[in-house]
């Protein structure tokens, strides 16, 4: 792979609850006051090469969006940095420093300002950042509308006049109009209908071909991620537990969580092959307020041993991918 382009370097994010003066006094007085924060992302490092698509998969609440936000420079990490071509995307004060990372969000109904016309939505950023002038904005916008397969005549319309798929195209056009290198897509097809989903996936594929975009593609749909990604990272409770090329990871998942996750998804069966059924993972995700010690997955892991409770596994190369599991670093029993 070529030089990394977007580098996420040991990034963590913690959400601390608001503590009032009263809470503090009460805590002094010995009352139980919730001071624990949510450790949404824990010490994650990733590097994405130019033109590469990295898929990020995980269950709800595991920190995908949080990581995506930090990668896009919308949210400041508690620790660690995100760099684009060596330069941080965000100042320590929380100001975004680059326009070269843009985002596409999940909900096409919420991601467009309902009070702005399509033209305004698309032109606002480029005009503000000097990518085009106010006078040329119309043509500029029309060009991007073409690109995402929307009619130029739509510039004057408002978001509520479009269907979900069309809105998502507008959202993509808005991101593209900023001429980004990297697109962070946070579940961009999750809320679309099946028949529309394919259109948008195809659009992403086409844009990658034509513009050489780099994607951080977040989804919980394993099928979609597989289809679009070069590499895939699996997240669990704020940590990356396995990362590798899509083919290798799907063909030979190493982490027990990845294995269970892949097995738990019902597959579309059209043959009478009844045997290949899915099997759910036992239990539920622990609360991020009180993450279990050691390996976060040990509470649900069929292969867990004493070491998993005591020790947090590191992400180490295992086969074609990198995995954070004790199974591959000496077993789950505690070393004597």
């Amino acid at each position, binding site marked *: 792979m070529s030089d990394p382009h977007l580098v996420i370097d040991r990034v963590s994010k913690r959400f601390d609850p608001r*503590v*009032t*003066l*009263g*809470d*503090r*006094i*009460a*805590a002094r*007085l010995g*009352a*139980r*006051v*919730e001071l624990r924060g949510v450790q949404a992302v824990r010490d994650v490092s990733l590097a994405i090469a130019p033109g590469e698509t990295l898929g990020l998969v995980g269950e709800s609440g595991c920190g995908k969006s949080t990581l995506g936000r930090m990668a896009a420079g919308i949210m400041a990490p508690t620790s660690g940095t995100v760099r684009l071509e060596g330069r941080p995307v965000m100042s320590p004060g929380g100001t975004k420093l680059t326009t070269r990372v843009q985002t596409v969000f999940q909900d096409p109904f919420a991601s467009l300002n309902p009070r702005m016309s399509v033209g305004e939505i698309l032109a606002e950023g480029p005009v503000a950042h000097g990518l085009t002038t106010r006078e040329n904005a119309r043509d500029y916008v029309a060009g991007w509308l073409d690109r995402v397969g929307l009619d130029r005549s739509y510039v004057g319309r408002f978001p509520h006049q479009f269907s979900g798929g069309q809105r998502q195209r507008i959202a993509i056009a808005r991101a593209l109009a900023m001429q980004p290198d990297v697109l962070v897509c946070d579940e961009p097809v999750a809320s679309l209908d099946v028949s529309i989903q394919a259109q948008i996936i195809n659009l992403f594929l086409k844009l990658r071909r034509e513009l050489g975009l780099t994607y951080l593609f977040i989804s919980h749909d394993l099928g979609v991620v597989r289809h679009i990604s070069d590499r895939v990272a699996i997240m669990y409770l704020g940590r990356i537990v396995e990362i590798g090329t899509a083919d290798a990871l799907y063909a030979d998942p190493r982490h027990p969580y990845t294995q269970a996750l892949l097995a738990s998804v019902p597959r579309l069966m059209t043959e009478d092959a009844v045997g290949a059924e899915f099997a759910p993972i036992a239990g539920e995700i622990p609360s991020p307020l009180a993450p279990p010690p050691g390996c976060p997955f040990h509470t649900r892991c069929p292969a867990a041993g004493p070491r998993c409770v005591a020790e947090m596994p590191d992400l180490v190369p295992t086969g074609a991918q990198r995995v954070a599991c004790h199974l591959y670093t000496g077993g789950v029993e505690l070393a004597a």
Partner: protein
Amino acid sequence: MLGFIIQRLLQAGLVMLVMSALVFVGVFAIGNPIDVIISPDATQDIRARAIAAYGLDRPIWEQYAGFLGRLLQGDLGRSFVFNMNVTDLIFSRLPATLELTLVAVLGATFIGVPLGIYAGYRPDSPVSKGIMAVSVLGFSVPTFWIGLLLILTFAVWLGWLPAGSRGPTVEVFGVGWSFLTPEGWKHLLLPALNLSLFKFAMMVRLSRAGTREIMLTDTVRFARAAGLSEWTILRHHVLKLISIPIVTVFGLEFGSTLAFAVVTETIFSWPGVGKLIIDSINSLDRPVMVAYLILVAALFVTINLLVDLTYALLDPRLRRKGA
């Protein structure tokens, strides 16, 4: 929860401080209270002596500091007009106001909520439209105006009820309550009705809006799907759900009703604290003004606190947070 309570109390202290400072500055800006109270034939010298005796010639910050100092010892001062301890003065009138307010707010709630639920349950029926019409009127028409019409109609014209004042009281716990006598109720009825009208409208609107929204939720649909009768749904699901906003409003309204009693008390010559505050504003009786506002602020904070605690009782979702 404790932290929350402490936070509230801290805020309460702050409100009271701000309110009292405001009154001090305000009264200072209006003028010297002695000028309002003193007889026209007092000589300069008598006036000067009176002013000095009450420390009104001192700089305002000094007066305020003195006030705070005494406040810390639990002394709110003495009324300029009555030379009584203002706490005594206010507490002697508080039962009258409390009684009036309670009757008004309880009445408004117990009549308004069922009607509101009905109007929300059957938003298009003529009865509901009628209920809403009344509530819009109650919401819009200024209290003083309704008060007048009530007196005019029921006391003067029909002669059914007294035109004002409080009825005979019965002592309970050393406090006189008038709602314990039939005659007392007769006196209480009109002012309470007057005062409750706005609250009534409020309760109707609130419970109607709440019911309408809840009726469209999946919760109700699910209850219906489980075969629950409409009555059970209203009684167990809807009532419980709308009770949360209603309790909030009940609490807040209780406070603001206390404050709004000013108008009703003036019209109905109800010997409560509301009238006292108007009188003390008119005579620049600063200690009473300050004490009253502090009291109201304290009352408000207490009520808000109670509301929040009740809230937590009613809404289990909040309980855990507070644990």
